[in-house]
């Protein structure tokens, strides 16, 4: 007896991410090409398309491990965590955590953090570009009101910290990177940003990290500044964040 439409759809969905199903192949014509082969075209397409989307979103991870290894990693992830929404650019939020827990990546302990950087750059790239706070926006305020201001980070802005030098790893992974080795010692604090035409990141000092984290936590400028160490230069750091467009325009 033919499957009801609802069961047919469920069987097809299960087939895409699972094994061949006899009840499904029985529903498909197999005159010139066997039904199972016809159906495998769709499964192949799902894994290839989602794998290609992940490769576009995580280019640094792919550069580090190579296309073959990445394809296997992506395939394992897709089978375990298929998309739950239709936008491919928004697929892969769980990929860095998946990498961290995957045996194959154990020899590359920095790989998950590189994935987090790739994901943050992807989010920044797709974040709205407008709505940045500029120094001129605050010029009309009297100075005594500045310390109590609460400023949010602009859309797409994210802080990525790692015990590994993600900035040097990223640079070494670019297509035009010079030959030669990269020292893995030393960590990095990176601020990922939406720029007018692209996404970018800058390295932050420890004091700047404390300040930015405070702002992201909803503290006032004064409270956030008090979190930084004694060598922190508030003027330079605040000017830098404004110049970078890292802060959201006030409502």
């Amino acid at each position, binding site marked *: 007896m033919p499957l009801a439409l609802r069961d047919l759809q469920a069987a097809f969905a299960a087939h895409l991410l699972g094994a061949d199903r006899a009840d499904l192949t029985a529903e498909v014509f197999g005159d010139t090409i066997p039904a199972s082969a016809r159906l*495998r*075209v769709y*499964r*192949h*397409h799902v*894994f*290839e*398309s989602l794998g290609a*989307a992940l490769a*576009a*979103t995580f*280019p640094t991870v*792919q*550069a*580090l*491990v*190579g*296309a*073959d*290894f990445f394809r*296997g990693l992506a395939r394992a992830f897709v089978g375990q965590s298929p998309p739950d929404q239709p*936008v*491919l*650019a928004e697929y892969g939020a769980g990929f860095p955590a998946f990498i961290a827990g995957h045996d*194959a990546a*154990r*020899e*590359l302990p*920095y790989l998950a953090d590189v994935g987090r950087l790739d994901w943050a750059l*992807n989010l920044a*790239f797709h974040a709205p570009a407008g709505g940045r706070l500029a*120094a*001129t926006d605050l010029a009309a305020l009297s*100075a005594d009101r500045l*310390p109590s201001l609460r400023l949010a980070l602009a859309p797409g802005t994210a802080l990525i910290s790692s015990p590994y030098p993600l*900035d040097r790893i*990223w*640079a*070494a*992974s670019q297509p035009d*990177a010079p030959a030669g*080795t990269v020292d*893995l*010692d030393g960590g990095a604090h990176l601020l990922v940003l939406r*720029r007018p*035409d692209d996404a*970018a*990141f*800058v390295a932050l000092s420890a004091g700047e990290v404390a300040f930015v984290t405070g702002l992201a936590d909803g503290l006032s*400028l*004064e409270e956030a*500044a008090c979190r930084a160490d004694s060598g922190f*230069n508030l*003027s330079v*750091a*605040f*000017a*830098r964040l*404004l*110049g970078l467009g890292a802060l959201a325009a006030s409502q």
Partner: protein
Amino acid sequence: MTTTRIAIASALAAALVLPAAAQAQGNMEKCYGVAKAGKNDCQTATSSCAGTSKTDAQNDAWISVPKGVCDKLVGGKTTAG
């Protein structure tokens, strides 16, 4: 206002009048999004729809040794945790 608060207010006000050129500097790494454009298209470059010879390469025999640029990275911790 306390002395600390005055100092903070002064530091913040000073930031607003720093020359723009001095504000945003510092080794920005730019990540161009050319490869990200059109990601939601059907994959045509790899022709995953074309032919059955490439269908469903489902197996676990994928290359399990990284062959990218990770061999350029040396030193540091080699295990997690």
